[in-house]
């Protein structure tokens, strides 16, 4: 599950935008700094972007830029956790995470309990990995605990979640990006999720 990249040139051609627009959006912080990934290629240094993230972001900007000023847009797209909260009952009703997840991990919480965005994000990620059939419910417990214990330490800085298994024993890790990581043989990387990407997806679901 390596992140797919797109070069700056491909991006501009595909979306029909100009260099000026791209740099303007960067100045206005519509495109976060850490999405600009510099890599050396045979033509010299080139800039790449995480493909899914940048394509959805640019669609969003192009759709909204006629109605909103760029500064207003920047607030909407801020990579930090949005101040969004949801009651458990609503979470259940709107089917944002599957009922299995709520039953298993939130059965003790009352219906009226209000979840912060952070909490919603944890549920969402657990749900995503469960749905993909990559993780068992027991591992879900561990994942939830890992995120609860460590995710706040990143204080909104970009990070990734790693899920690996060796000889049937699973483990999770949170990693600040950009980073390179190599494993011993026998370790199988099952999932690598960008938290920023998950925040975006969840935001899309909640809107």
């Amino acid at each position, binding site marked *: 599950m390596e992140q797919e990249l797109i070069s700056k040139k491909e991006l501009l051609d595909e979306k029909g935008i*100009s*260099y*000026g*627009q*791209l*740099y*303007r959006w*960067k*100045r206005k912080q519509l495109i976060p700094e850490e999405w600009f990934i510099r890599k050396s290629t045979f033509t*010299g240094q080139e800039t790449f972007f995480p493909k899914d993230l940048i394509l959805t972001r640019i669609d969003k900007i192009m759709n909204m830029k006629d109605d909103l000023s760029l500064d207003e847009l920047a607030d909407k797209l801020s990579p930090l956790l949005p101040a969004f909260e949801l009651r458990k009952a609503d979470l259940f009703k709107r089917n944002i995470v599957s009922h299995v997840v709520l039953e298993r991990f939130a059965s003790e919480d009352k219906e009226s309990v209000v979840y912060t965005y952070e909490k919603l994000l944890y549920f969402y990620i657990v749900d995503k990995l469960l749905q993909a059939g990559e993780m068992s419910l027991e591992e879900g417990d561990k994942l939830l605990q890992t995120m609860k214990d460590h995710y706040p330490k990143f204080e909104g800085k970009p990070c990734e979640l790693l899920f690996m298994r060796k000889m049937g024993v699973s483990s999770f890790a949170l990693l600040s990006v950009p980073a390179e990581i190599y494993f011993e043989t026998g370790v199988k990387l099952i999932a690598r999720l960008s938290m920023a990407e998950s925040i975006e997806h969840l935001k899309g679901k909640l809107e």
Partner: protein
Amino acid sequence: MESTVKPNLLISGVSDAGGGDYEKVKIDGVGTIKGSIAAVNFDTNGMTKVLGDLRANIMDCDGMIKVDGHLTAGKSVVDGTLKVKGSLKAESLAVNGFLRIDGDCESEVLDLEGSFEVQGLLNAGRLNAVLQWKGEAREIGVEFIKVRRTSKASWNKLWRWIMPKAVPGLKASVIEGDDIDLEYTEADIVRGNRIRIGKGCKIGLVEYRTELNAVSGAKIGKEVKTGD
């Protein structure tokens, strides 16, 4: 919400001051700010040093100013030297003299006259550079850029006498933008919509979308038309 009145900071002569949040900061002489400072109006004459970050809505500096952290400014004018160890972010910035930034430089409007050195990305809406000496940036990304060499040759002679090797001109590895108008520029790659390559240019690769105009004296390694 009740707004508290912010204090002013005045330095005349030689003095130090702590950082803080001010309405007006005026420094005449030599002043050192030992920390991060924010001001609505930041006005200096002489030599100023900020050991932390500097935030100003309006900045007017004559003389020399050094910022150890990041500089965030609204409308700013510098006559003399501006050195920033972090990155610079501004609404508009005009520098008459020398600009040096160790990080990235972002401004909607950027007017540079004299010489500059940006080690990171130089990102501007409109960049106007009139070079009396060399201009350097790792990467330039703009909507509009115009680079010229100053017409007044008197200073050139002096510079060349001090530093025989220094020839006024721009040096960058990549220049990307919508409207690009270059003279006396040395770059590996220039990419954009409408590009004009004027005299004294040495460009490795030019990629243009709509239009390329090159004077006969310009050296261009390779031209490529992209899009459609």
